[in-house]
C-alpha cells in the first residue's frame, strides 16, 4: 500500500462541512483491495488497536486497507480526546486508488493521526508491533499543545453557538471573529477593545489603588514606612490590624499579616526590611480570597479561591497526603483539566516550614496544612463558585473597579469575610484587578456550578442579533463566473457597500487591486474576509481551491452557479464526469446559510438539480420564461429571473421588476445571450442581498463606465462586425484567463496579437504562446518596443517555439512594431471574427485602436 498526497481541507468540502484530512491511498495487492481475502489481517489490526471501530463501506465496493486507514485515523483521534466523528473512503475511477477523508479538529493532529494509521496498517501487514499508547499520547500532547486553551475555547464555543464565524490567526490564542468590517478579535480573555493603558494601570498596584480609592472602591489603605516607629504611627493612622510587606517582594517573603500590637508591628518592619529597602504598611483585610469576573458592566461570575491544602489523617505524611490529593483524575498537569496537581516544590516546602512542618511530618487528623500562600489554580489551588451569593453592593464595587481602571474584561480580586455582605460593613476591599483573567475557575470550578463566561464575552462583542457576518456571495460555474462576480460586486458597490472581490485576475477591495493573478481560491477569499474595510464579499470560487482546501467560509449568504454545461478540465483530480463536476460545484450550494439564497441557472439541468441540496431559498434564472423549472418555481411564488419582450424580469409572486435590456450595456442591447445570463445571475444575487431595485437598475446601466476607468483590462471594440478585445496581459496566468474569457464569445475565426516581455524567463515566454496555440487560428507576433536586455529577435524566437506543434494555430506572422502588428491583424478581420490584442504601450495602443474603430464610424466602447 502506498499513500500519496495528504492534504488538509480547511473548510466545507466535497466530503463534509467540517474540516478534514484527505489522503490518496493506493492499494497494491489483491489482499489490500479486499480485506476479506485475508481475515487474519483484521484480527491482527484489532489486536494492535482494539478501539479501531468497525470498518465500513457505504459503497458496493469491498472493504480495503484504505478503509482500515480511515477508521484507524478517526479512532486514534477519538482516543486522543479529539471531538471528531466523520470519516469516509471513496473509490476513484483509477483501479486500486481510494480517497480517504477523516475529520479533524486540529489540523496537525489530523495529519499525525493519518500517519499513525498508515504505520498501524503497515505493522499489521508486516506482523510487527505497534506502540499504540505512544501514538495516542503523542496525539493527545500535540492536541493539548495546539488546540485552544480553556478560556479562549469557551469564547470560541460561545461564538459558534451564536453562529459567529471564527478563525485562528496564530497558533496561540489570537482569534478573529466575524468577517470584514464586522470583525472582532480576542486573545484569551482580552478583547480588541481592551485598552492597553488600562492593562498598564492594572499592572501598577499602587496606581490601581489610587484610582479605585478615588472612585470610592474600598482598598487596603497604606503608605510606605521609614522605620519601626513610623510603622507604628502609620498603623494607628490607618487602623489596626495591619500588614507589613516589602515593596516588590515576591512569593510572600517578609510579609507579616494581621499585626495588632506595637511589638508585632515593629517586629514586622524589622523582618520585612531584610528583603527590601522600601517597606509598605497596609490595613489588613480579614477573610478569604474571592475573584469576581466583570465583563462590560456586568458581574458574570464569582469564585472563592483557596490555596492548595491537605488535611491530616493522623497516619500519612504530608508528602503522602499530597500524592493522594494529586491522584484525583480531575487534577492534571496543565490548564486542560478543572484542577491542577499540587506542586510539591521548594515554595511548598518553605510554606510547610512556616507552619512548623516538614514534608515527612504526619499532621494529626483534621489538621489543615497549606502548601502555598496564594490560591492560584495553576499551583494546585481550588475555586468554589459563589456567583449567586454576591451582594449587589459588592458587585457594584467590582464593576466600579473594572470601569475605573478601564478594563472591559476584568478579574477583580477581593478579600473579605463573605460576599453576602457589603464590603464596607466588614472591612473588605479590592486588592487587585487583573487584565486577561483566567476563566477556567469559572468555567469548571472545583466546586459549584460552572458559568458560561464565554457567552458573556461574545455577547459583549456581538449584541444580540449580530453575528459578525457580512454578505458573502460565492460564484461558481464553467463559464461567466468572472463577469458575474464583477457585475455583482458593481451592483453592491453602487449601493455604497465597500466590496471585496476575488476572481481569476485578482483580489479587489473597494476597487483597489490588492493581489493579482488567479485569485479564485480559498486563500484569496480568506484574505477578503479578514480585510477590515470589506462590507460585502463577492468570491469567485473555482474548483481547484475547493478540491485542494475546501471553502474559505463556513457558509455563504448567496451561492451562484452560472452553469456546468459540458464542463472543463475534466479528468483532473478524479473529477471525470460532468456529474462529478456538478457534485463538486454543488458544495457552495450545500453551504448556503439557512437564511441564504442559491441563484441557479434553470436552463442547465445539472445546476437546476442542485436546488434540492440548498438549505436556504432558491432563485432560478433562465432566458426562457416558459422553461418548466422557471414556470414551476414562479407558480410556487418563489423568485425567478427571466427575459420577456427584451426585458429582464425579476418576479416573486405578484411582485415583478422589469428592466429593458437596452439599459444593460453589458448585453449590447440584448444581443449577447451569455451576458444576459450573467446579468440575470448578478441581479438575482443583488436581490438576495437586499439591494434596492433602483440601485440594481442604476448599477446595471453604469457597469460600462467601470471598464473605461480601467484601460487595458478587457476593452472590447466592435470593428466591421468583428470583435476586437484589447488587454494588457503579459504572463501565462493572465493569458490563460484571457483565453478563457474570449472563449465565451462566439467567433468564426480567432486571431491574436502578442509580444513577449524580455525580462521574463524563457519558459514563461514560451508558455504564453503554448496557451495561445490551443485557442487561436491566427497569431501575429510582434517585437516589443523595449527588449529589456534581450537580443534582437530573441523574444520572437521564444514565442515561435511555444507555437511549435500548436493544435489550432494555422497562420503565424512576425511584425516589428506594435501598431503595425495591430493594423495587420485588424486588416485581416471579417464580420464574426474575434481578435485579441495583447497591448504593450497601453495608452498609445488603445488610442490607436480607438482611432481606427472611430474611422469606421460605428464605434462602441464596451467591456465584458
Amino acid at each position, binding site marked *: 500500500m502506498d499513500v500519496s498526497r495528504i492534504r488538509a481541507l480547511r473548510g466545507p468540502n466535497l466530503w463534509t462541512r467540517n474540516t478534514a484530512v484527505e489522503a490518496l491511498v493506493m492499494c497494491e495487492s489483491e489482499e489490500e483491495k479486499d480485506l476479506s481475502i485475508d481475515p487474519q489481517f483484521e484480527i491482527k489490526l484489532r489486536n494492535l488497536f482494539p478501539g479501531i471501530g468497525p470498518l465500513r463501506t457505504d459503497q458496493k465496493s469491498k472493504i480495503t486497507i484504505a478503509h482500515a486507514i480511515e477508521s484507524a485515523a478517526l479512532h486514534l483521534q477519538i482516543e486522543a480526546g479529539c471531538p471528531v466523528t466523520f470519516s469516509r473512503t471513496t473509490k476513484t475511477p483509477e483501479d486500486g486508488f481510494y480517497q480517504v477523508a477523516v475529520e479533524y479538529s486540529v489540523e496537525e493532529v489530523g495529519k499525525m493521526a493519518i500517519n499513525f494509521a498508515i504505520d498501524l496498517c503497515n505493522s499489521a501487514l508486516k506482523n510487527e508491533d505497534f506502540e499504540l499508547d505512544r501514538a495516542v499520547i503523542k496525539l493527545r500532547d500535540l492536541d493539548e499543545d495546539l488546540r485552544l486553551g480553556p478560556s479562549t475555547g469557551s469564547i470560541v464555543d460561545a461564538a459558534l453557538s451564536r453562529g459567529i464565524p471564527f478563525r485562528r490567526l496564530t497558533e496561540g490564542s489570537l482569534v478573529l471573529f466575524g468577517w470584514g468590517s464586522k470583525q472582532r478579535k480576542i486573545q484569551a480573555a482580552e478583547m*480588541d477593545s481592551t485598552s492597553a493603558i488600562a492593562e498598564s494601570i492594572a499592572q501598577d498596584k499602587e496606581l490601581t489603588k489610587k484610582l479605585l480609592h478615588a472612585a470610592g472602591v474600598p482598598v487596603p489603605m497604606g503608605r510606605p514606612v521609614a522605620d519601626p516607629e513610623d510603622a507604628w504611627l502609620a498603623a494607628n493612622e490607618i487602623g489596626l490590624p495591619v500588614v507589613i510587606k516589602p515593596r516588590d517582594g515576591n512569593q510572600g517573603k517578609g510579609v507579616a499579616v494581621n499585626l495588632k500590637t506595637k511589638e508585632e508591628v515593629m517586629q514586622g518592619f524589622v523582618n520585612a526590611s531584610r528583603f527590601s529597602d522600601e517597606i509598605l504598611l497596609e490595613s489588613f483585610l480579614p477573610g478569604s480570597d474571592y475573584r469576581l469576573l466583570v465583563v462590560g458592566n456586568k458581574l458574570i461570575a464569582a469564585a472563592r479561591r483557596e490555596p492548595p491544602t491537605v488535611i491530616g489523617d493522623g497516619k500519612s505524611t504530608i508528602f503522602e497526603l499530597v500524592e493522594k490529593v494529586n491522584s484525583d483524575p480531575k487534577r492534571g498537569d496543565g490548564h486542560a483539566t478543572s484542577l491542577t496537581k499540587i506542586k510539591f516544590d521548594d515554595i511548598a516546602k518553605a510554606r510547610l516550614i512556616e507552619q512548623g512542618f516538614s514534608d515527612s511530618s504526619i499532621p494529626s487528623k483534621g489538621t489543615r496544612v497549606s502548601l502555598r500562600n496564594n490560591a492560584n489554580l495553576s499551583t494546585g489551588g481550588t475555586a468554589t463558585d459563589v456567583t449567586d451569593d454576591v451582594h449587589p453592593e459588592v458587585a457594584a464595587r467590582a464593576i466600579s473597579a473594572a470601569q475605573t481602571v478601564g478594563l472591559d474584561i476584568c478579574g477583580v480580586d477581593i478579600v473579605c469575610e463573605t460576599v453576602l455582605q457589603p464590603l464596607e460593613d466588614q472591612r473588605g476591599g479590592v486588592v487587585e484587578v487583573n487584565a486577561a483573567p483566567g476563566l477556567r475557575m469559572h468555567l469548571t470550578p472545583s466546586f459549584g456550578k460552572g458559568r458560561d463566561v464565554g457567552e458573556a464575552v461574545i455577547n459583549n462583542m456581538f449584541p444580540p442579533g449580530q453575528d459578525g457576518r457580512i454578505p458573502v456571495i460565492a460564484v461558481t460555474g464553467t463559464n461567466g463566473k468572472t463577469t458575474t462576480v464583477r457585475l455583482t460586486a458593481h451592483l453592491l458597490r453602487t449601493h455604497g457597500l465597500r466590496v471585496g472581490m476575488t476572481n481569476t485576475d485578482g483580489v479587489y477591495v473597494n476597487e483597489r487591486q490588492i493581489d493579482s493573478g488567479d485569485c479564485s481560491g480559498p486563500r484569496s477569499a480568506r484574505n477578503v474576509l479578514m480585510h477590515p474595510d470589506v462590507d460585502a464579499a463577492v468570491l469567485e470560487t473555482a474548483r481547484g481551491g475547493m478540491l485542494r482546501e475546501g471553502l474559505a467560509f463556513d457558509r455563504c449568504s448567496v451561492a451562484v452557479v452560472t452553469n456546468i454545461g459540458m464542463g472543463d478540465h475534466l479528468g483532473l483530480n478524479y473529477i471525470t464526469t460532468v456529474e462529478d463536476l456538478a457534485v463538486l460545484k454543488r458544495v457552495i450550494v450545500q453551504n448556503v446559510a439557512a437564511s441564504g439564497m442559491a441563484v441557479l441557472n434553470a436552463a442547465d439541468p445539472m445546476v437546476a438539480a442542485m436546488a434540492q441540496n440548498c438549505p436556504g431559498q432558491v432563485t432560478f434564472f433562465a432566458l426562457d420564461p416558459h422553461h418548466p423549472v422557471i414556470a414551476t418555481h414562479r407558480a410556487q411564488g418563489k423568485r425567478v429571473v427571466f427575459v420577456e419582450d427584451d426585458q429582464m424580469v425579476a418576479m416573486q409572486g405578484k411582485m415583478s421588476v422589469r428592466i429593458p435590456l437596452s439599459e444593460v450595456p453589458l448585453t449590447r442591447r440584448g444581443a449577447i445571450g451569455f451576458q444576459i445570463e450573467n446579468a440575470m445571475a448578478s441581479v438575482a444575487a443583488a436581490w438576495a442581498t437586499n439591494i434596492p431595485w433602483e440601485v440594481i437598475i442604476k448599477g446595471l446601466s453604469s457597469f460600462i463606465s467601470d471598464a473605461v476607468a480601467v484601460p487595458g483590462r478587457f476593452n472590447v471594440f466592435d470593428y466591421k462586425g468583428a470583435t476586437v478585445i484589447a488587454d494588457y496581459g503579459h504572463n501565462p496566468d493572465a493569458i490563460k484567463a484571457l483565453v478563457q474569457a474570449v472563449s465565451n464569445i462566439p467567433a468564426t475565426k480567432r486571431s491574436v496579437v502578442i509580444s513577449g516581455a524580455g525580462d521574463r524567463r524563457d519558459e514563461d515566454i514560451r508558455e504564453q504562446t503554448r496557451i495561445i496555440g490551443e485557442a487561436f487560428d491566427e497569431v501575429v507576433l510582434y517585437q516589443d518596443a523595449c527588449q529589456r536586455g534581450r537580443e534582437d529577435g530573441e523574444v520572437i524566437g521564444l514565442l515561435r517555439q511555444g507555437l511549435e506543434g500548436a493544435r489550432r494555430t494555422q497562420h503565424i506572422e512576425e511584425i516589428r512594431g506594435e501598431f503595425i502588428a495591430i493594423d495587420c491583424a485588424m486588416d485581416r478581420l471579417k464580420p464574426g471574427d474575434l481578435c485579441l490584442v495583447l497591448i504593450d504601450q497601453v495608452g498609445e495602443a488603445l488610442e490607436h485602436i480607438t482611432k481606427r474603430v472611430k474611422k469606421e464610424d460605428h464605434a462602441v466602447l464596451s467591456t465584458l
Partner: protein
Amino acid sequence: MAFKDIEFLQMRYLRGPNFWTYRPVIEAWVDIGELEQFPSDKIPGFAQRLEKWLPGLIEHRCGVGERGGFVERLKTGTWPAHIMEHVAIELQTLAGMAVGFGKARETSSSGIYKVVVRTRQEQVGRESLKEAKNLVMAAINDSAYDVSATVNTLKAMVDDLCLGPSTACIVDAASDRKIPSIRLTDGNLVQLGYGALQRRIWTAETDRTSAIAESISSDKDLTKQLLSQCGVPIPEGQIVHSPEEAWEVAQSMGLPVVIKPSDGNHGRGVALDLNSAQEIKAAFRVAEVEGSDVIVERFIKGEEHRVLVVGNKVVAVAKGETATITGDGKSTVEELIESQINSDPRRGEEEGFPLDTIRLSEHQHAVLELQRQGLEPTSIPAKDRVAIVQRNGNMSYDVTDLIHPDIEQIATLAARVVGLDIAGIDLVVEDISKPLAPQGGAIVEVNAGPGLLMHIKPAVGSPRPVGRAIVDHLFGHSDSGRIPLVGILGDQQTGILSKLVAWLLHLSGRRTGLACSEGLYMNQRKVQSEDARNFDLSERILINRALDAAVFETTILQILNEGLPYDRCQVGILTNLPKEAGLEDHDIKTTDQLLSVARTQIDLVLPQGVGVINADVGEIVGLSELCDGEVILYAESPSNASIKEHLSQGRRSVYCKDGHLVMARGDQETLLFPLDFKPIAKLIKDEGLETSTLLAAVAAAWALDIAPLLIRAGLKNFGQQVANHASLLSEKSSQITKSIKN
C-alpha cells in the same frame, strides 16, 4: 560690606486656581531685611552682574510692557523680591520649562514680601525660587555664582519630573482647546477632561488603544502576515535551503534581494541589495553559518519614512536620511566620515543639533553596515565608490506635505489592520510623493505608542501639530471633556446648599460627586466622612469616571493654601464674604483683600457658565462684572436695587415676592412655590434652612437647566433621603423621578 541673606519665611505650592492666577504657582514669603533700604539702583554693579549672568532678562517686559522693561526697572531701582521673581522665571525658562507669570507684593509688614512664580512642576518651581534667591544674593554681594550649574540641575529635574515631550505636546494641545488635564502619576499617564467625560493618554497611547493591537504590532512576523493578507506591500520573504533555491526564489521575487538568517539580530549574516546569482549564492553561505534558517527577502530600495497615523488619518510624515561616503582612493572610511558627514553643520554632539555626529566607536550599526559592504574603519574605498554608513539616521525631515494619497491610504489601512488608533508606520520608499507599490516600496513595521518628537521638532521642515491631532481624535469638535461643576463659596449655610444642589443634580439624572464639610459623596453614597473641602479629596471626584457632575463646597483658606482642584466651573456660587479664622496668617486683613480672594469663585466661571451671586450682600454684587459667563442674582426681595437693574437688562434673578419663590427673567416671572408650601416650610423650620440658601439653590439649579418642576419636586423631597445607602436611595430617587413624570 555683605548684605545678610534674604530669608524664606514660608513657601507653598498652589496646585490649582488661586489668589494669584488660574495656574499652579509657588508662593514664597521672603524677608529681605535691610535690603528694603537698598533698591537695585543703590547697589553698585548689581544690575550689570545680573544682566551678564542672565542675558535673557532683557526679554522680560515686566510692568513697563515692552522688551527690556524689567532691565529698565533694575536700573531705575526695584526691590529684591521682585528681582527674585524674574530670576526664578528666567531660570525655569533656561531649564526648558517655559513659564511667564510672576508677581511680587509687599505685605503689611515692612521688608516682607510675597513672591509668586508660575511653575509646571512643584519641585522645579521650589528649586528655581531657592536658587533665584542665591543668585540674587550673589549678584548683590558681588560673589561668585555658577549659573550653568544651576541650570543643569534644573534641567535634570525637568527631565526627571516633568511630562515627556510627547505627552506634554498632547496636554498643551488639550489646554489650547480648553480641555482640562490631571496628571495621574509621576510618569506620563494623564487624564484629559473630568469625570465621566475624561479620556486618558499615556505618551502616544490612548485609552482606546487596543492591547491586542499592541501585541500584534510587537510581533513583526504576524504583523507582516496580516498586512500582506490585506494587500499592504511588505518585504516578502521566503525560507530557502540551498544557494540554488535562493537564486531561484530571488528571481521569482524580483531583484534585488536581501539574504539573512531567520532569527538574525544585530545584522549578523545579513546581506543587502543583492543582484546577481553569484552574490546571492555567496550570501546564502554567509547567512547559513549563523545556524538558523536562511530567508530571501525582497530588498526595498529607498529611504525610511515614519508616517504617523492618528484615528485613520495621516497627520505627519518624517523622513530619515541615508548617510553615505564617496571614496577618493586615498582616505580611510573614518576620515571620509569626518570630512563628508560630520562636517555637516547640522551635526553635533549636543542636544541642540538636529543630527548626530557619527563616530564608528559608538555606532555599532554603522560598523556592521560598512562590514556588509566589505569595509573596515581603516579601509580605503576606491575612488568614486559610494558606501552607505547609516541607512536610516534620525527621522529628521518633515515631509508631511509630500505624501501621496495612495501611500496615505495604505498607511492608514496598515494601522487599521493591526487595530491601532495611533500608529507609527515605518515604510521604505524612494519617493513618498508617488504611489507605493509601483516603485517597490513597502511597509516594514507598525509601531504602537510612537514617539512624537520627530514631528514636533524636525531638523528640517515645519513642526506638525500632532498633539492637536491626537486631542481632536479623542474629543469631538465641540467637546471639552467637562462635566458640570458647581463651586460654592460663602458663609454658614454653604454645606446644606451644596447638598441641595447635589441632590437636584442627582434627581436630574446625573451621577453627582459632592465634596463638602460633611464628607465626600459619590452618586449619593458617602465614601469619606472627613471634611472634604480640600484639594486631594475633591480631586477624587474629578478622577472618578463614573460621575457626570460635581459640587464643591469651597473655603477662602482652601484658595489661599492649596488653590482649587478644578480649573473652571460651570456654576460658581458666592453667597457671602466669609470671614474665616486664620486669614490673618495670609495677611488678609481688609475687606478688599478678602474680596480679591473670594472673586476667584466667580473668576472661574466658564464663558458658557453662570455666576450665582447674593445681591443682598452689597460688597459682592460688584463681582458680577468679573464673571465670564452669565450672572443670576438672588435676593430676598425684588426691591433690591441690584436685582431691579439686573432684571431691567433682561437678565435672570431669583427672589421672594408675595410669599412665593420667584424665578424671573427680565419682566417674566415664574412662581416656583409658595414659601409656606408644607415641605418647604418644614425644611426651613426643621433643618434651619435660610430663605437665602433656598434662593441660592434654586438659582443654581436654574443655572444648571434643571426644570422648575423638578426643582420643586426635589426641594420637596430633600431631607427625606435615606442617608448613606445608595441602593435604597437610587430606588427612592427613581420612584421620585417617576412621580415627577407622573
